[in-house]
Structures are given as structure tokens and as C-alpha cells.
């Protein structure tokens, strides 16, 4: 209505203006952008109807028309790929007017599905993104292998089946994983807890170093890994892909398949299935007894994806059972001493597919709903709801037929809602704000017959964020973001009365006491944390080939349930772990730079960072505790201040049209400032070199990759002494759990052959050899290094079909 009146008003005024038309030195300029993703549209024609005035947009999507007289005009904006728009406009003074064009529907899907489909989350922070199918080629353990090709990222492993990402020397609660717009909530705190996600049900993976993506939280000083589904085609079509991977090491493989149906009205449905099965893996010289795994996952996604609005409803179900090397199950530090002194695992049996205790079982179910609406002015409203249920069971070797009863049995349920408003544009300024909130319920099943490692608790979290950027021109952008989170933890935990008193909790936290059970006391710790996080950075294009990003990130993280409440025996390192109620939030400052150069045949990026954290929570050995099973080292969570500095470099060089050489190297220095000690479990200097050959006419290519890990010489001394009885004498022996293993080199070869099939299907065969030289090595970031060498040679055959 208003617009209508306004237009009438304009028409009326135009008569007056035409009469007074004398001073014809006015101009109109502006920018033409894509309605869908905001990118500039080059070569659009801006015409003033009825005149000879026109302008064509330049490489920045900008146009300018000079020499206009005051008056009313009709502008036509045309582009061969877009719907033409006409706009009435009144010119009294020179003005800037920006327009958005919408692509023709048939063009749109190409735009959406082109390389642009991975949107950068924060422009002032360098991110690494991949198409999942691109990284799938590295084998059945997608994520692990993929991260080996990203400088600055590594993997913390427990054997072969359990792997979690490490970014800038941090892991666990300091690295977040986001799937389809929601954070993943499983028992992420444990170094031997792998994320319960099937990577095959997503299309893209993005890695952001540092807590820059405040939309998803400000508590991940390490970084974020974001998995997402791509936008769907708007046409009637049915397509899918399947892959079969067979591997010699572990004598197993993976089958995954995915089918997707899309309709022209934007509706789409897809289903995905993954099955994995492996028996005992082997090191170069022996079988790693009890290391098999079984996985079965499926997901169903339903949605409607229009340009201006869309929704999706997903359900996914992930099930995994992983055996843990039997030789790693130890009774006390004496067993640990014997294991460390033995070059081989203490138990080597013949190959089997059976998965016996010790083992882990994980089940993760997720339901999510997302909705978005895009308004004409490019403002986007999004909201969503997500429910996740994570069941984690750990089985130990137990007496009296209890091996089949889990020793740890946790059920974590998370409800999460989120809403945001983005793309609010005011000239060069762009804003986004949003809210998300969750409630988490952790239940520790008492039927284990073993004291709870993690107690029952409820956790409430609400976060508000505000993000913005200022795009001065195409070569300079300033970005900032603020986030505030409130976290409330309401736990119910039994403490041994002796521990409760010894730690002085009885006086400090007497208000938490609920009921005395004799040897134990039931308590109700209620803890609150208020966290502020922020990010600001600039992105500057020095010229067409050179770009610099610089960013400052403040992140604050509340201690997790393990850091606060842990209470029990961790079998794999024979340690009794205690949490601490008095831990405060961890505060990290990080400065992150990236220099990117793309010129001719060479692309390189150099990304240094510096970070200082206060109240950095870590676990340290504090003494020995005598139990009926002998002496155990006690490890307690504590806080310190740490300093990290590191740099990642990666480059890619096209030697000629057939040969390509990639190189990456990264190093992190980490120091405990209060103790003046290095930090534990920091990846050593590591590098990879990759040479790829693509013949001129052939339908194949070959890649040779060399990984080199140096020896980590900076580590804290966590060794302790233990009295061994040797030949009738007590001998005090050191137990060395600190010294990292020597560095190693690993060579892999990938051969891909594209097979000719008909035009609707594509198939490909890959042959891969990993650890070609069958080198025996131990990886500092593999917790099984105390007990066995890493994997020996592995032959893989992959068959991939796209239809």
C-alpha cells in the first residue's frame, strides 16, 4: 500500500521536475548482486528506459550512469542468466542504488551446485573445505585420513578404530563438530571417544581453526569442523552413488550407498546407508589382537528447498562397536611396566572378526528440523530444533561372567533449539544475530556395578550472538562478532566421604550435600558459568593474487563434566582420574593470520597463530594411590596458563599440465607458563608431500604421498617410580609414560581409473597402498603406542558408482 502511494506521488512530482530540468550532472551508481548468495553479478546491463543512458556492471558488480537530469526514470536491469527487473526511480540528487537479481530457475541449480556451494562462514578467517566425495578416496576411515592432508589439523587415536580431530594442538571439548547447523553432542571429553558421526551422510566438510564461527559457540579455542548437506536441485531427478571399499589390513571393508530424489517443486528426499566390518588389524610384524570393528548407520532426509524458503527434516542413526587391543587392558602399574618393557603386545592371538572385551559400543540418534525464509531484501530467517540421544557403553574384562555388563553405561540426551536472522544489510554493513539454547540430560546407568565415572547431571545452556561485517569494497572487509552464553550444571553425584573431606569440599561446598550413605555422600553440585566470546578480523585483498586475513578470537569455555566430576579408574593408562569442582572457566585469546597467494602455477598459504589461555584445564599426575589391585597413579584435573604458537603452511604447484606437487607442513609450540613445562600430547612437527600425475589422454591418475612426523622432543615428565620384586629383591623402577616415540615416515600410493560407462552413470576404480614400505612406527598421538606399533601395509580396492 505504502509503495503504491509512493509511486503515485512520484508520478505527480515527475511533471514538476521535468519542467525544471536544467542541471544535468547527477549520477546513479550501485552494485548488482545475486539474490541467492549475495555475490556480485558481472556484465549486467543497467538501462534507463526511453534514453540512451546505460551502464554495464564491472568485475565488482558495480555500475554507474552519469549526466542525468533530475527526474523520474524507469531502470531496467538485464542479464542473460537472470530474470529482468524494472524499477521506477526518482532522481533529485546523485544516489547509490543496489539491486539483486535472481537467476533463471534452470541456471540456478547450476549456480547452487557449482563450487560456490560451500559458503565461507567467516571471511576473515581462513578455512579449509572439502567435498566429502573428494576425501572419501582416502579410505574407509574418512575423517582421520582427510585431516592428515590439512596443515594444522591432526588426529588423536586410540588404536585404529577410534580417532578424534586435533586442531592447533587441541582436541575434545576444545574442538566442536557441527552437523546440519547443530553442534554434535556426545561424550566428546574423552581422548578415547571418537565422534559418533557417519561422514558419508554429508556432502561438505569445513574446518575452521579457532572459535571464529560464533554462531555455533564460543567455547572451541581449537576450532570447529562443520559438516553440511548441499542445497538440492529443483528438478525431477533421481540420482545416487554407491561405493565399495575392500581393505587387506583388517580383512574388511565398507559399503555405502545413497539415493536422492528431487522434484521440480523443490521437494527432495534422500536416504543413506553405511556398513563397515573389520577384523583384527595388523602391525608390520604381528596381529593386533582384538582390534576389529563393526559399524552400521543410516539416515533419512526430507526437505523442500526453494530459493526463498525451505525446510528439512532429518533422522540419523549411528551404531558402532569397536574392540580395544586386549594387551592394553591392564590391572595396575606393574602390568603397565611390563607392557612398556615389552616390544610387542603381551598377547598376540590368531586373526578373528570377533569383538571381545575390552570394547566400546556407541549409538547416536539424531532428529533435526531446520527452516529458513529468505526475504526480498536478502534477510534470512532460520530456526531449527534438534534432539540427540547418545548411548555409550564401555566393556572391560570382568570376573564372574560380568564381561557382558558394561563397566560404563552413559545416556546423554540433548534438546537444542536455535533461531537466527542474517543478511541484514545496511549499505556496506551486514548483520546477523541469533539465539540458541539447549538442555542436556546425562544418565549414568547404576547397573554397571562399578562406581560412576561421570555422574547424572542436567545442563542448561543459552547463548546469544551478534555478528556483523563491513565490506568497504571488494578488497577490504572488516568482521566482528560477540557471543554470550550462560551455562548451568545441576549434577547429582556420590562422593566417597573420605574424598569429599580430603579435598576440603565438606567445608567449601557444604551446601551441595544431600544425604549421607555411610561411606558415601550424595551431593547436588549446582554450578553456573557466564561466558563471553568475541571475534574480530579483517580480510584484505592486496591485489588479484594476494590476500591477507587477520583475526583476533576470544573464547571462553566452561569445564566439562569430566573435568568437574571424573571419579574412577581409566583402564588404558592405569590411572585413577579425579575431576575438580573448583575449576573456573577457561579463557583463551588467539591471534590468527593467513597469507594467501595464487599466481600462475603456484598457490600457497601461510597461517601463523599465537594463543594464550588462562585457567587452561588439563590433567596431571599428583601421586600414587594404594588400592587392592596395587598402586595406581592418581591424575587430577587442574588449571594453568598456557602459551601456544604455531604455524601451518601449505602449497600446491602445477609443474606442468600433467604433474602437480602439494606440500604442507605444520608446527605447534605449547608451554605451560606456570609450571614452565611443555604441554602433553602436542603434535610434533609434521609434513606431507604429494605428487600427482595425470596423463594427457588417459582416464586415470596416480598420486604418491609421503608423510613425515618428527620426534616430539617437548613433553612434560609424568613418569613415576614403582617397586618391582626382581629375583627376591625390591627394585625401584621408573615407569616411562612420557617419552614420545621416535619420528616416522609413511608412504602411500593412490591410483584412480575412470571407467567409461553410459552418460548417466560414472564409475571409478581406485587402488591404494598405504604404508607401502610396511614400516614399523609408533605415533605420539596414538594412545595405543604404549602397547603396540601402528598399522602395517594396507591394500585397498575401491569401486565407486555414480548414477
Amino acid at each position: 500500500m505504502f509503495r503504491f502511494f509512493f509511486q503515485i506521488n512520484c508520478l505527480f512530482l515527475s511533471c514538476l521536475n521535468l519542467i525544471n530540468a536544467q542541471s544535468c550532472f547527477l549520477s546513479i551508481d550501485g552494485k548488482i548482486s545475486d539474490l541467492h548468495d549475495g555475490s556480485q553479478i558481472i556484465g549486467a546491463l543497467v538501462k534507463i528506459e526511453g534514453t540512451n543512458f546505460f551502464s554495464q556492471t564491472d568485475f565488482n558488480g558495480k555500475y554507474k550512469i552519469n549526466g542525468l537530469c533530475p527526474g523520474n526514470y524507469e531502470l531496467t536491469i538485464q542479464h542473460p542468466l537472470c530474470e529482468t527487473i524494472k524499477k521506477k526511480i526518482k532522481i533529485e540528487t546523485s544516489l547509490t542504488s543496489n539491486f539483486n537479481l535472481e537467476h533463471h530457475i534452470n541456471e540456478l541449480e547450476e549456480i547452487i551446485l557449482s563450487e560456490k556451494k560451500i559458503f565461507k562462514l567467516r571471511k576473515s578467517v581462513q578455512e579449509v573445505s572439502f567435498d566429502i566425495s573428494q576425501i572419501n578416496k582416502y579410505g574407509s576411515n574418512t575423517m582421520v585420513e582427510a585431516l592428515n592432508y590439512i596443515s594444522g589439523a591432526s588426529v588423536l587415536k586410540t588404536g585404529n578404530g577410534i580417532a578424534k580431530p586435533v586442531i592447533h594442538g587441541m582436541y575434545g571439548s576444545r574442538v566442536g563438530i557441527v552437523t546440519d547447523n547443530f553442534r554434535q553432542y556426545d561424550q566428546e571429553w574423552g581422548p578415547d571417544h571418537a565422534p559418533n558421526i557417519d561422514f558419508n551422510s554429508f556432502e561438505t566438510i569445513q574446518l575452521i581453526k579457532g572459535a571464529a564461527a560464533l554462531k555455533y559457540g564460543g567455547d572451541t579455542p581449537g576450532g570447529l569442523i562443520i559438516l553440511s548437506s548441499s542445497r538440492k536441485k529443483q528438478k525431477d531427478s533421481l540420482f545416487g552413488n554407491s561405493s565399495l571399499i575392500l581393505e587387506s589390513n583388517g580383512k574388511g571393508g565398507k559399503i555405502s550407498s545413497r539415493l536422492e530424489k528431487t522434484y521440480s517443486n523443490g521437494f527432495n528426499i534422500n536416504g543413506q546407508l553405511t556398513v563397515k566390518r573389520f577384523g583384527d588389524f595388523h602391525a608390520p610384524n604381528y596381529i593386533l589382537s582384538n582390534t576389529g570393528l563393526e559399524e552400521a548407520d543410516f539416515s533419512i532426509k526430507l526437505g523442500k528447498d526453494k530459493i526463498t524458503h525451505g525446510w528439512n527434516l532429518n533422522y540419523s542413526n549411528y551404531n558402532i562397536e569397536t574392540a580395544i587391543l586386549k594387551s592394553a587392558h591392564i590391572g595396575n602399574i606393574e602390568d603397565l611396566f611390563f607392557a612398556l618393557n615389552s616390544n610387542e603386545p603381551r598377547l598376540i592371538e590368531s586373526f578373528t572378526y570377533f569383538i571381545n572385551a575390552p570394547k566400546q559400543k556407541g549409538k547416536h540418534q539424531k532428529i533435526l528440523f531446520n527452516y529458513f525464509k529468505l526475504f526480498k531484501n536478502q534477510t534470512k530467517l532460520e530456526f531449527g530444533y534438534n534432539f540427540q540421544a547418545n548411548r555409550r557403553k564401555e566393556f572391560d574384562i570382568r570376573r564372574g561372567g560380568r564381561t557382558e555388563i558394561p563397566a560404563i553405561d552413559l545416556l546423554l540426551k540433548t534438546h537444542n533449539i536455535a533461531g537466527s536472522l542474517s543478511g541484514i544489510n545496511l549499505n556496506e554493513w551486514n548483520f546477523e544475530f541469533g539465539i540458541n539454547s539447549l538442555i542436556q540430560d546425562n544418565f549414568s546407568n547404576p547397573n554397571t556395578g562399578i562406581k560412576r565415572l561421570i555422574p547424572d547431571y542436567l545442563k542448561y545452556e543459552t547463548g546469544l550472538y551478534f555478528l556483523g561485517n563491513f565490506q568497504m569494497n571488494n578488497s577490504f572487509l572488516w568482521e566482528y562478532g560477540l557471543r554470550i552464553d550462560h551455562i548451568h550444571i545441576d549434577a547429582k553425584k556420590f562422593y566417597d566421604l573420605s574424598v569429599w573431606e580430603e579435598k576440603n569440599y565438606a567445608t567449601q561446598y557444604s551446601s551441595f550435600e544431600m544425604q549421607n550413605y555411610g561411606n558415601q555422600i550424595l551431593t547436588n553440585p549446582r554450578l553456573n558459568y557466564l561466558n563471553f566470546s568475541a571475534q574480530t578480523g579483517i580480510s584484505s585483498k592486496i591485489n588479484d593474487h594476494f590476500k591477507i586475513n587477520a583475526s583476533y578470537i576470544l573464547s571462553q569455555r566452561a569445564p566439562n563434566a569430566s573435568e568437574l566430576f571424573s571419579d574412577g579408574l581409566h583402564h588404558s593408562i592405569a590411572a585413577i582420574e579425579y575431576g575438580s569442582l573448583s575449576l573456573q572457566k577457561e579463557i583463551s585469546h588467539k591471534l590468527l593470520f593467513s597469507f594467501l597467494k595464487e599466481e600462475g602455477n603456484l598457490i600457497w598459504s601461510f597461517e601463523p597463530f599465537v594463543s594464550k589461555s588462562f585457567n587452561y584445564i588439563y590433567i596431571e599426575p599428583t601421586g600414587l594411590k594404594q588400592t587392592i589391585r596395587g598402586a595406581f597413579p592418581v591424575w587430577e584435573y587442574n588449571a594453568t596458563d598456557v602459551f601456544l604458537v604455531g604455524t601451518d603452511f601449505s602449497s600446491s604447484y602445477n609443474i606442468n599440465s600433467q604433474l602437480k606437487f602439494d606440500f604442507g607442513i605444520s608446527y605447534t609450540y605449547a608451554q605451560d607458563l606456570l609450571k614452565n613445562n611443555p604441554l602433553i600430547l602436542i603434535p610434533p612437527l609434521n609434513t606431507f608431500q604429494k605428487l600427482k600425475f595425470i596423463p594427457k589422454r588417459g582416464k586415470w591418475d596416480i598420486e604418491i604421498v609421503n608423510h613425515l612426523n618428527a620426534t616430539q622432543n617437548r613433553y612434560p615428565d609424568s613418569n613415576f617410580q614403582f617397586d618391582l620384586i626382581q629375583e627376591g629383591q625390591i627394585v625401584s623402577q621408573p615407569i616411562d609414560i612420557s617419552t614420545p616415540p621416535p619420528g616416522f615416515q609413511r608412504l602411500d600410493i593412490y591410483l584412480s581409473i575412470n571407467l567409461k560407462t553410459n552418460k548417466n552413470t560414472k564409475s571409478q576404480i581406485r587402488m591404494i597402498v598405504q604404508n607401502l614400505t610396511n614400516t614399523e612406527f609408533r605415533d605420539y598421538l596414538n594412545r595405543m603406542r604404549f602397547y603396540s606399533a601402528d598399522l602395517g601395509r594396507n591394500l585397498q580396492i575401491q569401486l565407486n558408482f555414480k548414477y
Partner: protein
Amino acid sequence: MKNIQILFKIKFIVLAMILIHSCSKDDPAEINQQEYISNVIMEIQSSDGSSQTIDWDVSEQNTESINLIANNDYTVEISFLNSSDPNDIENVTLEVIEEADEHQVFYDFADVSVNVSSASDDIKVGSRGVLIKSIWNASSTGSGISRVYLIHQPTNFDATTREAMGGFNDVAIDIPIVVTD
């Protein structure tokens, strides 16, 4: 108008969050620790009829020593208890006997020399004695340590050292020992 709608939607989200916030949780059940061993009891009977009982209790300071006379045979019967619930003391030895095929009691000594053999009424798996009941004979005088093990799933039952035996410790405690003339 649209902005108002958006505001309403956000308010709705906030309201939903407040609703979610208002729930509570039942008190957790106390855990009855099942496999736990809290006491190791050793009944040491000399051939002349005198006897000594050692009760090694995990929740106490244990200083009592085993007293033997050199070159005398003693029958030593070991048992394991779970007394974490004083009203329901559980005899774990029965479980060990039931799974005798994967358990072994083992004694190691420092600074004293004691010969240990399976008693005639010991629990046997084939010809192997589990050493629930054993015969001790000290060959020289002195004082030292006896290290008492209950080993689960040893890989080599016939080994003579703890290291060679493999498996993992369910019990490993030190009891002082004094051998006199």
C-alpha cells in the same frame, strides 16, 4: 510487518527455552559395587596347630605381618571378600573358584625366601593348583615383603615370575613377612 513477525518468532523461541529449563531429575541410585574386593583374608596354620589370620582391609592401614618359623610347613588359605556393604558381605572366593580356569593366585617375596606349593585340598584345574590353599615353607630367617596376587586370565599359568605369567592383576597387595628360627 515482517520484522514484527520475526520478533514474535524469536519470543516464541525464548519462551520455549524457558519451558524446557523447568524440569528436574530423580536422585541417582546408590551403586552396589559388584566385583569389588575390599578384603584379602589369609589363614595361616602351622603344622603344630597354632594359627594366624591376616585381614588386609582396603579402608584401613594394614601393618600386621605374617610370622613364620623357618623350615616349617604352613597351610595358607586365601579368601577374598567384598564388604563394601557391611550388611551383605560377599565371598568373592566362590567366584574365583567357579572361574578357576582363568584365575591364578601367585605369591612373590622380597628379602625372604619362601617355597610355595599347592596343597592337596587346593582347587585344581587339571594338574595346576590355583593356590587358594597352599603350603608355605620358609628356608631362611629375615624380614621382608610378600606380594599377594590374584591374576585374571594369565597367558602362561606355569610361569615362575609375575612378568612371564601375563594377564592382569585383580589383587596385588604387599604384606610384611617375618621369618624366625
